[in-house]
């Protein structure tokens, strides 16, 4: 009993900062329809800028408040710059490309922050007034946490007034429903969007600065808070401020108790709660079904088999790939093996994402599950490589079937966020369950069988598997199953009305994609000799997305081209600069702005220009 109340209050305090970030995310999404991946980065900047301001000011409460105000203004200003420079240019791009562009911003801001403030954590020394305690029911409770607890409801109340009692709020709510119509009624969308973004960014900045006294400014804030914020927004219902508030309370309290009760699996607990909520309320606690986007959508082009010229080109490339070991050295052989892994990684994601219409932001989960399955079997029973390579897809496929049971009940952004959260859980298990997975140190000593240890032989094995998987997936796509999957994506209502089982089609797509991806994880692990939690990290999942989107969703050859281009680019980048995140992030943003349909998509359009009525 003694520990319950303090723990509850800690949870409530955590809920407040979570709410600040999630509310900004939700407001921005409402109006711009962009899920702002870089929202966590804005909070991180809030912490750093807040630190720089607060450490320079006197340490009295009134100065603290002034510091907060300055920080909020600074982050709101950064938000404005971000909106004007990047987001404004991608409003008309497809949803996924927007997410990708904001992820590019995450990478850029990571390096910028590192460059300005350095890698060391920056704690804020707590002044005397902040260290006070208040006695509640016999427990001494930190004064500052009480302040935090009040901030959440106060901000919720102010936002409610702003949204429901001002003309600006009415316009924002109208734009959330139909922004084109708002423009046609004479409202300047640009200023509206920019001001909304400034408000959302300011809230994130406030969250960042307020979190300083209890933690510190550090480089991990961005991705960890964005995962939590996604969970909150999904549980609460996208676009609902009240929902975000309730979900923040739920998640905040859960985390506070989880850390005491089940420290190792707090994230798993959070995930389970989210799963339960989504099974009963697929649109979140307070959410409503997503309205159909009110934009002139250009229909997806008809998928036809590749033109003969492209097949010949493919055969030539394959012949070159087979002969490559005779020409290139060991280093490039490693890069080529990585490329084979990347091909499976990307084609498997394309399978569920293109024809399946399920955009996963956590594809690396299957990669990791496959890798760990092979690694653990080796460690427990000394399983050799062929067994490991067989076990990997089986394990990933089984988990995908379990996970698929409720993921196929969602669609669009919800599905993307859920897959991201799921991947974070798998990552957390691999990272925290040290006894089994070796934690951060990973599993070492996973080498190919004796007969395959020669890099050339191993490369050929990887090549055969990559080409085999790509061809099998392609075959399935042109068979009735693949068509039915595409039918379910094109129009779920029509698919059902001709008797197709949409959910089952999607689960099977997820299982196939997961299994194939698991295989790529195993190949990768054998080629590197070990398995690490980074295989499951968010950036790795985003790599898969990048490859697919680079290549374009509309062609079967797309993900292969994307995988090759990406592997090549990454290799050059990582070797040539320390600021690779900055460069990669900028490249992503530029690509999204320049080629909204991917490289292969653009090439296909040029190729077909004038050939199709």
């Amino acid at each position, binding site marked *: 009993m003694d520990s319950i109340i303090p723990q509850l209050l800690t949870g409530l305090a955590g809920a407040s900062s979570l709410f600040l970030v999630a509310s900004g995310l939700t407001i921005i999404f409402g109006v711009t329809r962009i899920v702002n991946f870089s929202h966590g980065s804005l909070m991180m900047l809030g912490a750093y800028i807040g630190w720089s301001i607060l450490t320079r000011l006197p340490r009295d409460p009134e100065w603290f408040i002034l510091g907060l105000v300055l920080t909020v203004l600074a982050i709101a200003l950064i938000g404005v710059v971000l909106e004007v420079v990047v987001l404004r240019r991608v409003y008309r791009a497809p949803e996924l490309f927007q997410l990708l562009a904001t992820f590019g911003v995450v990478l850029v801001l990571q390096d910028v922050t590192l460059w300005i403030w350095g890698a060391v954590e920056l704690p804020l020394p707590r002044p005397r007034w902040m260290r006070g305690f208040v006695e509640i029911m016999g427990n001494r409770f930190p004064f500052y946490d009480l302040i935090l607890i009040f901030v959440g409801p106060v901000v919720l109340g102010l936002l409610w007034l702003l949204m429901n009692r001002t*003309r600006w709020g*009415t*316009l924002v*709510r*109208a734009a959330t*429903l*139909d922004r*084109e*119509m*708002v*423009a*046609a*009624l*004479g*409202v*300047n*969308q640009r200023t509206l969007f920019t001001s909304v973004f400034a408000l959302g960014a300011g809230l994130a900045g406030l969250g960042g600065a307020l979190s300083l006294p209890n933690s510190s400014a550090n480089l991990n804030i961005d991705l960890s808070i964005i995962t939590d914020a996604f969970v909150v927004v999904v549980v609460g219902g996208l676009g609902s401020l009240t929902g975000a508030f309730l979900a923040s309370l739920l998640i905040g309290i859960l985390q506070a108790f989880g850390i005491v009760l089940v420290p190792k699996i707090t994230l798993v607990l959070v995930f389970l709660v989210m799963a339960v909520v989504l099974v009963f309320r697929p649109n979140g606690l307070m959410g409503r079904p997503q*309205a159909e986007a*009110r934009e*002139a959508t*250009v229909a997806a082009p008809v998928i036809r088999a590749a033109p003969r010229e492209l097949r010949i080109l493919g055969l030539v490339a394959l012949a070159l790939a087979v002969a490559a070991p005779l020409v290139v050295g060991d280093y490039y052989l490693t890069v080529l093996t990585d490329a084979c892994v990347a091909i499976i990684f990307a084609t498997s994601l394309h399978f569920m994402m293109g024809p399946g219409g399920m955009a996963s932001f956590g594809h690396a989960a299957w990669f990791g599950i496959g890798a760990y399955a092979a690694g653990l079997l080796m460690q427990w029973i000394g399983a050799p490589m062929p067994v490991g390579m067989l076990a990997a897809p089986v394990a990933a496929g089984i988990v995908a079937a379990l996970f698929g049971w409720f993921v196929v009940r969602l669609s669009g952004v919800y599905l993307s966020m859920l897959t991201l959260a799921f991947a974070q859980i798998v990552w957390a298990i691999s990272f925290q369950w040290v006894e089994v997975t070796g934690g951060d140190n990973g599993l070492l000593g996973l080498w190919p069988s004796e007969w395959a240890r020669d890099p050339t032989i191993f490369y050929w094995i990887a090549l055969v598997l990559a080409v085999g998987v790509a061809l099998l997936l392609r075959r399935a796509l042109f068979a009735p199953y693949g068509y039915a999957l595409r039918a379910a994506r094109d129009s779920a209502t029509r698919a059902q009305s001709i008797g197709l089982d949409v959910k089952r089609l999607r689960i099977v797509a997820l299982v196939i994609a997961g299994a194939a991806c698991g295989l790529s994880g195993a190949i990768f692990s054998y080629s590197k000799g070990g398995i690490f939690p980074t295989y499951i990290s968010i950036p790795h999942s985003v790599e898969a997305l990048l490859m697919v989107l680079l290549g374009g969703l509309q062609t079967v050859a797309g993900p292969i081209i994307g995988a090759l281009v990406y592997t090549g680019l990454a290799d050059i980048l990582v070797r040539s600069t320390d600021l690779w995140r900055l460069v990669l992030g900028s490249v992503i943003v530029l690509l999204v702005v320049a080629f909204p349909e991917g490289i292969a998509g653009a090439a296909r359009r040029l190729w077909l220009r004038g050939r199709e009525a």
Partner: protein
Amino acid sequence: MLSVDGLNTHYGRAHILQGMSLQMGRGEVRVLLGRNGAGKSTTMKSIIGLVRPTSGRISFDGQEIAGEEPHRIARRGLGYVPEDRRVFADLTVMENLEVGKQTARGGMRGWTPERLFELFPNLGRMRDRPGGRMSGGEQQMLTIARTLMGNPRLVLLDEPSEGLAPVIVEQMAKAILALKGEGLTILLAEQNLHFAGGVADSATVVEKGRVVWSGTMAELRADEAARTQYLAV
């Protein structure tokens, strides 16, 4: 007052408007006739700026407006009522009207919610009802009222009778005639010839993105050949 000249637009590779032209005088009510996909809606969206024309001129009160942003065009005194209504479903009647509000331009008697409720008495009885919980006919009234809150001098009405019960269509015709009485210039897109005949002075028939017939309503009634050829009635 409004002059559209040689307008071309594309959606992707599809060439929708192919040299569309149109003239409208002050106080005129003109109907655009033509089958679905002929380019009636695209003409309206191009005028209000939601679709950017690839070439051609649009001038309103002598000012060139082609390629301007929608909100600027709207503020010049052009109102747009889209097809399939598009009320803000979560917003109440009063809030919907608030979104459309623009200050009146010189010399005009500005529209207020109260004046609009005289025109559409149904709306006045449901001021706080969310747009999404109104019937189709009520929603259509609301979109028109919402556009009028911007005090436009010319209104583009895209298929206001579509999907409405005949008895509601009759009310709609009365409301449009009342607006005409106020001196408003109206460009109407319609498939319902009975309805159009009751409210319009003149007609323009569109086919494959260009004008194939133009004249007064009386001329259209007299021109049996044109009606059979273009409208199949």
